């Protein structure tokens, strides 16, 4: 990442900024360094700042590093801090300022500003926070961006609850949005948790479905064989390698795999020991986006919904099987987790269920406390 130097055209504007050492940390002086607040704000996809607010003391030196992480090559952004209540005034005036002035208008409402920063580049702005307490908005003033891309610097006052913070874009008034998790990288545009990414995954078949759960756990359901192959925690998947070039590479499993299926297809319906013919039928999104998988075993429909264990790491798999035959669920003692079931009887590592019990039961997979990944 390169740091772009300040454009000459902007220099006179910045000179307006009161008591602002314009550039370079050294201007803040060695004595003030200990009190310097270092803040990093990134421009991220979807016309957003990753950080939509921060607090600072009046008169404190702020070293603000602005990074444009928007992957659109031609999407420039800046960051302009305004007087309280002046965000829209500045945003509107910016259009007339033009690209030569980096869309920073020459008006007193502008306090501090970075130049336009190209994608993949950064700029460090060092300034002294105003002495007057209040909420100082910041925005990208590139035409069209300012209505979506903004936040606020709180100088010497408490921040209101995020959900009701008028200085923050409505879409970012939740914790998840205010700090978008790095887990959502290399997935479809518009992906939210619970997240689905059908892709090429290592140690799996070519029809794999990666599912990311909101609490940081993920699993791989291989639609080629209709069973959960492995589960991990720490991150989701990153398709960047798979999307690059001809598409040969696997997607990355981000995090640590804590469970690996060793028994293959786990269900046995009826007395037979063979698996039977398993057909994948698709999935339905339930309860806000959790995929409930559907597949048939010799024509018997199975529904399987996998969610996070509510009281700790691990997964709860809810099965619904419409059959008049007994059902067995095979587990793998060396798969990395301990199994518990809501119904049935354990015969060694095999859970035995009556037809009635099989109508709906759960199998809970619990990683050992020291499994590392699972939080």
């Amino acid at each position, binding site marked *: 990442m390169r740091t772009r130097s300040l454009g000459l055209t902007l220099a006179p504007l910045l000179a307006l900024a009161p008591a602002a050492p314009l550039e370079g940390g050294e201007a803040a002086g060695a004595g003030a360094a200990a009190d310097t607040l270092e803040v990093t704000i990134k421009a991220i*996809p*979807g*016309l957003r700042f990753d950080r939509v607010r921060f607090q600072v003391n009046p008169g404190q030196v702020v070293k603000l590093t602005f990074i444009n992480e*928007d*992957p*659109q090559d031609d*999407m420039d952004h800046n960051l302009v801090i305004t007087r309280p209540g002046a965000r829209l005034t500045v945003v509107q005036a910016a259009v007339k300022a033009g690209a030569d002035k980096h869309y920073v208008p020459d008006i007193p409402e502008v306090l501090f500003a970075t130049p336009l920063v190209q994608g993949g580049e950064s700029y460090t702005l060092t300034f002294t926070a105003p002495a007057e307490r209040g909420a100082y908005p910041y925005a990208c003033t590139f035409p069209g961006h300012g209505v979506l891309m903004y936040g606020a610097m709180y100088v010497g006052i408490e921040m209101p609850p995020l959900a009701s913070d008028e200085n923050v874009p409505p879409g970012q008034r939740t914790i998840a949005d205010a700090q978008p998790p790095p887990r959502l990288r290399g*997935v*479809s*545009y*518009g*992906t939210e948790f619970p*997240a*689905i*990414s*059908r*892709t*090429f995954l290592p*140690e*799996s*078949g*070519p*029809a794999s*479905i990666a599912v990311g759960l909101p609490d940081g756990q993920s699993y791989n359901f291989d*639609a*080629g064989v209709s069973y959960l192959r492995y589960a991990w925690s720490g991150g989701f998947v990153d*398709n960047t390698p798979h*999307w690059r*070039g*001809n*598409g*040969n590479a696997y997607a990355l499993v981000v995090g640590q795999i804590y469970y690996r299926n060793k028994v293959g297809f786990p269900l046995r319906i009826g007395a037979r020991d063979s698996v039977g013919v398993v057909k*994948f*039928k*698709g*999935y*339905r*999104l*339930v309860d806000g986006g959790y*995929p409930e998988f559907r597949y048939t075993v010799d024509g018997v429909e199975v529904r399987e919904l996998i969610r996070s264990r509510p009281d700790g790491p691990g997964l709860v798999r809810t099965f619904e099987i419409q059959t008049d035959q007994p059902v067995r669920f095979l587990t793998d003692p060396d798969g990395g987790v301990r199994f518990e079931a809501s119904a049935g009887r354990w015969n060694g590592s095999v859970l035995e269920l009556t037809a009635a019990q099989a109508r709906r039961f759960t199998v809970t997979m619990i990683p050992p406390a020291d499994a590392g990944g699972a939080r």
Partner: protein
Amino acid sequence: MIRKLLALSPILGLAVLPGEASAQAKGSKATYPYRIETIETPEGLVPETGGLDFLPDGRLVAVFHHGEVMFYDPQAKTWHVFATGLHDPLGVVAISERELIVAQRPEITRLKDTDGDGRADVFETITDEFGMSGNYAEFTHGPVMDAEGALYFSLNTASNNGPVRPIIRGTYSPQGRIGRMFSAVPYRGWVMKVTPDGKTIPWASGFRSPNGLVLDKDGNLFVTDNQGDWLGASKLFHVQPGRFHGHPPSLAWEPGIHTIPLTIPVPILDKMRVREAVQIPYGFFANSPSQPVFDYTGGKFGPFEGQLFIGEMNHPMIMRVILEEVNHQLQGAVVPFIRSEELRLGNNRLAFAPDGSLWVGQTDHGWVGAKGIQRIVWTGEMPMDVYRISLTTNGFDLEFTKPVDRRTASDPKAYQVTRYYYEYSLNYGSPQHDKQAVPVTDVRVSPDGKRVSLKLAELKKDYVFQLDMKGLVAEDGTPLINSTVFYTINQLRLPGAAPRPATASVAGGTSGR
């Protein structure tokens, strides 16, 4: 990779079609009456377009390689996410605002928004009854839906540049594994049909990279295939059910064939194969033809109702195909349509909007190309173009959209005709063999000036006839911009047989059944 490199050189040499590119691009007096507009896509979306269609309410539905299914409102110019997380979706059929059918790598999927919140909540597997070796080139193209509700899709063969993964889906065939592009798992290199009651049928074999399917109004299925091993040039097939279309590895899945397909002698394969309706000369103006689409706009897109438009990946171009029936077989010609610097590369998907504009979805996913969506709008003026070309017993009848200037058009020297053939072999592509000039022995211009009958010294079956008419102008002075026509002769017009005019109705559906 070799192909990619080869493919690049013609881009640099855009001037190969004399007069054409320059006349269109520079917007000279002969401005072609079509306008190209670029559709903005959301920040953060990588618009590698895999499929386009229109919802009944007029909104566009687009699917993108990174797994998104999105709606675009052309009036409000807003985008909406309908679904995410699909694997390389490469085609979409809009059933309603709440139901779509999408082709993705592992399956054909029905997406439904059952609660009406604008997001898909049901992802129903219509079929996954085909194999996946995990090879990157095993794309799933399509689907298209016929009047009865049957679906057709095509399965790309795998590339020798990539592996067969340790874990595959489907039966492995060592016989099918052999080949530059191969078919190690079921029905790679096949066109598949899903009947309205849900049965999956391997429908036709012998395809290599069938990146484009379309049905005409009569239910005839057309598929493009890409130049490479066994394809001397790129091709447009009129798909014949149950038959073999020329690329052998897929024969591994043909019941009754137990040998290694590549060991079947070429003369036998040559006899077995269905001839393409049109060969698309490689490099000259097309390298990777993509999706074809019929103009059923009722004239909203200009004078070419019933004809086919085909996208092209490596050139800023859309092609046009003119078909006719000769001896009960469809054959015909390909001509450039739009070739403009305003058009991007990577023209992978085409769809006509209800207003008659042609929407073009672009991709560069692992290939030469570009990203995004553009649309082509007819300005309403009549272009000066070859409207139709029809084989006669002794030459060609050319019909123009406007009366030609009689003086220039009556001169035999205004027409340079060459013929050549592409060899059918396991080689990657083919040079133009036996290339020879064909003298024009007679030219007649019809009284209305719209038809020119050329008599040629020779007509030859299994050859491509290339007609260059660079100097031709309309009576009103408009130059003929797209002045090169490539006609594939599979069948000769027999003397005495009533010449059927090269009407749009052959493929355009007015012939009735």
